[in-house]
Every structure is written in structure tokens, then in C-alpha cells.
């Protein structure tokens, strides 16, 4: 039972991180390896705001989110916009280059040490067979609220509708007079902000260190492919599923195999359903 709670927490964070990744994949058309580094950046900024500026955790999380979102937009303009016409291979490798650049910069600025958020998890609630801390509940609740807001944003606002239109057919969206550039910046902001939030959450439940981005991006990729890249709900479900699988597997095999379990699920998923768990259409080739 206890592992289901852990799984839910891990899964919620993973879902938040993967949704942003998948939005970029849909509207910009490439796999953004640097997404993991934006997550690390979020974790370090959150830590900086809590530990050094001594902000409230919620405010720190919000500040980190906004800041990482803005950095994402900036990177999109400076780094990704110029190579947009060179095709997905060039964009993918640009993102790998950016990931290394950010990784190096983060290590220069914040150092290579492991640090912990100086924040407690609040009271431990005893719910019969399980123990839950207030912090863990808050993470799941915040994740759910954020996902709900994202869904509302995508379906109820004009900008959200534009984003979905651009995702499903960029050419047609341009022809219909949708301001594709503005949509692109909006997506970069939202996706990077979500990565930043996920980073703060990862830092809160574990620790903050510079290698975070590399380990997280692997699991994000697994969740994204399992969910079928395209559908937001598919990706959310896949994130939760992977989180649960990783933590429930701890009951029968050592926890050091967590990543192996995630990829085992991914490989199994690809073998059984090559089009992704929830993809409506067939997989498009890169």
C-alpha cells in the first residue's frame, strides 16, 4: 500500500514533466533532450529561492516555474528558431548540444554537489495501513490542479485552441491565420515552466544534484513513447503508470532496478502496442 502512495507521487511528477516534453514534440516537431536540463534548472532555482532567499516553498516553486518558463522562451528564440528549417535531426542534435551546455553551466554556477531542500514534509498522517505526509499529498494535489488548469487552458481559451490546432496541422494552422510564432512561444513557456515545476518537486521528494536532468530525461522519454507522444491524456496516464510500476516493483526486486523496470515496461509496450498505449493514429515517422 505504501508503495502505491510513493508511486502516485512519482507518477504525478513524471506526468507533469512529460506533458511539457510532449507538447514541444507535437508543436515544434522534435525531441527536446534539453527538457531534462530545464528540470534540473528548476530544481536548483527552487532550492536557491528556498535556501538562500528564504522564500516560502510555494512562492519559490512558482518563481522557479516562471523563471524556467522565460528561460525556455529565450532558448527557443536564440537556439532553436535558427535551426527550425534544418529538419528534426538538426533540431534534435541542437537540443543535445544545449543539454550539455546547460549541464556544464549548471555545474559551474551551482556546483556538482548533492543538496537537499531545507523543507520538512509536514505532519505524518496515519491512515490505517498507510502513512502519508502532508507534503506528499500536496505534491499530488498541485500536480492534479496544474494538469486540470492545463486542460482548461488547452480547451477553453483561444490560445489553447491555437496550440492544439498547430499541433495537429501546422501548415493548416498557418493558412487559417493563426499566429504560429506566438503559439510557439506560448508552448515553450508552458512546457519549460512545467519542467521547472517538476524539477522543484523532484528536488523536494529526493535531492538536488546536477545529474538530475540526464536520469529524468530517460524516464520522460520512456513515458512519452509509452503514451504515444501525441495525446496529452495518453502521456499523463503513461507517466502515472510508469511511476506506479517503478515504485510497486520495489516490493519484489531491489530499488536499484527502478529505471530498468521503467524501460522494461517501455520495451514491453512497444512490442505489444507499437503505436503507443493511447495513440489514436499510427505513429508518424520522424
Amino acid at each position, binding site marked *: 500500500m505504501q508503495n502505491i502512495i510513493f508511486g502516485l507521487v512519482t507518477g504525478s511528477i513524471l506526468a507533469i514533466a512529460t506533458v511539457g516534453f510532449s507538447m514541444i514534440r507535437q508543436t515544434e516537431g522534435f*525531441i527536446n533532450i534539453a527538457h531534462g536540463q530545464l528540470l534540473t534548472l528548476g530544481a536548483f532555482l527552487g532550492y536557491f529561492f528556498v535556501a538562500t532567499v528564504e522564500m516560502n516553498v510555494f512562492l519559490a516553486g512558482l518563481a522557479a516555474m516562471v523563471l524556467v518558463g522565460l528561460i525556455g522562451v529565450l532558448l527557443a528564440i536564440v*537556439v532553436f528558431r*535558427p*535551426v527550425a528549417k*534544418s*529538419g*528534426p*535531426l*538538426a533540431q*534534435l*542534435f*541542437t537540443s*543535445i*548540444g*544545449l*543539454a*550539455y*551546455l*546547460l*549541464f*556544464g*553551466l549548471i*555545474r*559551474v554556477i551551482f*556546483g*556538482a554537489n548533492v543538496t537537499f531542500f531545507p523543507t520538512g514534509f509536514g505532519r505524518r498522517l496515519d491512515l490505517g495501513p498507510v502513512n502519508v505526509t502532508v507534503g506528499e499529498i500536496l505534491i499530488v494535489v498541485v500536480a492534479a490542479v496544474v494538469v486540470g488548469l492545463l486542460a482548461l487552458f488547452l480547451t477553453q481559451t483561444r490560445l489553447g485552441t491555437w496550440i492544439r490546432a498547430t499541433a495537429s496541422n501546422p501548415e493548416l494552422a498557418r493558412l487559417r491565420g493563426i499566429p504560429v510564432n506566438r503559439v510557439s512561444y506560448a508552448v515553450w513557456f508552458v512546457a519549460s515552466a512545467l519542467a521547472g515545476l517538476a524539477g522543484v518537486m523532484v528536488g523536494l521528494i529526493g535531492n538536488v544534484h546536477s545529474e538530475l536532468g*540526464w536520469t529524468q530525461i*530517460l524516464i520522460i*522519454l*520512456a513515458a*512519452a*513513447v509509452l503514451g504515444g507522444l501525441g495525446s496529452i491524456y495518453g502521456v499523463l496516464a503513461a507517466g502515472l503508470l510508469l511511476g506506479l510500476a517503478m515504485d510497486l516493483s520495489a516490493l519484489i526486486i*531491489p530499488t*536499484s*532496478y527502478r*529505471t*530498468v523496470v521503467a*524501460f*522494461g515496461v*517501455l*520495451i514491453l509496450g*512497444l*512490442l505489444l502496442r*507499437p503505436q503507443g498505449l493511447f495513440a489514436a493514429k499510427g*505513429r508518424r*515517422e*520522424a
Partner: protein
Amino acid sequence: MSGVILFLVGVVTLAGIYAILAMILNLEAGWAGMWDLGLAGLVAVGGYVFIITTQTTHEDVIFAPGWPMWAGAIAGSLAAGIAALIIGIPSLRVRGEYFLITTLAFAEVIRQLSINLGTITRGTVGFNQFSRPFEGLVSGSGYRWLLLALVWAIVLLVYLLMRRLGHSPYGRLLRGFRDNDPVARSLGKHTNRHRLQTFVLAGLMYGAVAPLYVWFIRTVTPSLFTSEVTFVTWTALVIGGIASLRGPVIGAAILLIVTEAAALAQGLGEMAVVLASVRFIVLGLVLILVMRFRPEGLANERDAFANASRRVEA
């Protein structure tokens, strides 16, 4: 002064090893169109099988048959080939970026296994006591020169092999189905079988190169086979020019010299962490700039095969 020279010898040796890896990657990714992000895993299989089968002492490990080096190298190569077969069968069911992610996933699984199967691989401690070939012939620092010569001789060998393969009907077939799979199939080519064959061939070669890497680094631990190996190899290939002939070698030489130059100054005490991070910044910047200003790389496919059609007519 001699310290600097020995350091440079090391850099050039490492560049040679990456040149070989990049040429193999060029075969599967550049010509056959399989974007493999899992090559580090296959190098790991080759390296580990080599080192385990040639171990003589049973200290901390349950399996140490103490085979001679050549037998270990062959075993490593075969094991990597078999691993490639196991990875290839499910992965090749999907194309493009899905293939890329699946291979990356497999490489990570292999690395995690190498950490967790401590009774065979000695976990994160790894191996650091092993002999290297021809060690009796030359004295301590002379060995670096010997390894340099050995590595670059193999670079030349692989280059000649790849040039032969690239111009052969087989090479044309690979580039053919990379560009248009339905046409190749309509001409009666079993493109999926050829993909798997090429993937396994590349696996055998990655496994065979692994001992060189191991001899150069002088230890075998899981941290040597992270996806950094994959990404550095890819960067070398992309800088040099994907699908060209000389590109992988040029790219590896430039990349390694540029990134390792930062390490030259590394003795500066507290600056060590910063300088180690500078390597990553340089690597990233080089990749971003090349993609932006010369996405086809320094050498390119058109020039490499410019005479191909004429050669056929002659």
C-alpha cells in the same frame, strides 16, 4: 614538457577510438538510416565480456575463466553482436525517433545491469587490475605511444573497410532504403532483414572496439559507458558530416582536441570542477554552432560518393 606531450598522445589516442566508433555509427545511422542512441550499451557489453572472460583471479567475482586476450576480445565482440540482435528485433519494429528512444532505453538497461549484477561485474567498483597487450615490450610511458599506433592502425583499417563497404552494392542498398524504403522493397530487397543484419554487424564491431577503450582508460566501471559515449560519438559524426566517408575521422579528431584542451589546465586545484564542466559547455557549444551554420557537417555525402556513378559505368 614531456607531460604535455604524453597528454596529447592520450588525446589523439582517444580521438582515434572515437573515430572508429563514429565510423561504425556512420554505417548504421548515416547509410542505413538507423539512428542508434544505444551504442554505449553495446560497447559496454563488449568491454565487460572481454574483461570478465580474461580475469584470472576470483576475488569478489563468481566467474573468471582467465581466457587469453584474443579469445576474450572475440567473446566480447560476439556478445555485443548477440546483444544487438536482442535489441534490434524489438527496436526495429519502430522507426525514426521511436527507434532512437528504444535503443537509448536498452543502453541504460545494460548500464543499470552492469551496476547491479555485482557478483559478475563488481558493481560500481569495477575492474582496474588487468594486463594489456604487448605490455612487456615497452617501458611505462612508451606504452602510450604503442597504444596510439595500435589505435590509429585500426582507424586506418576500419576506414578502408568502410570505404569498400560504402562503394559496394551493399552500401548502395543501405543508402537506397534509407532514402526510399518502398522502392527498395519493390525491387525485391528484404530491407528489414538488411537493417537487422547491419545493426548486428555494427554491434559486433562496437564489441570488437571495446577492448581498445578499456586498455586506454585502464579501468572498467559502469560510469565509462554512460550515454555520454553515445552523444560524443554522435557529435563527432555530425560535426564531420553524416554519411560521408572521411567525416567521422575528421569530426572525432576536432571534437576530442577541442574538448580535451580544457583538461590541459585541470591541475589548478579548486578550479577542477569548473574546468571539468567547461568540457561539457564546449561540447554543447560546438554541437549547437555546427548544427546552425553547417548542418551537413564538414565533409558531406555528395562529395564522398561523387565518383560513384562514374565508377559503375567504367
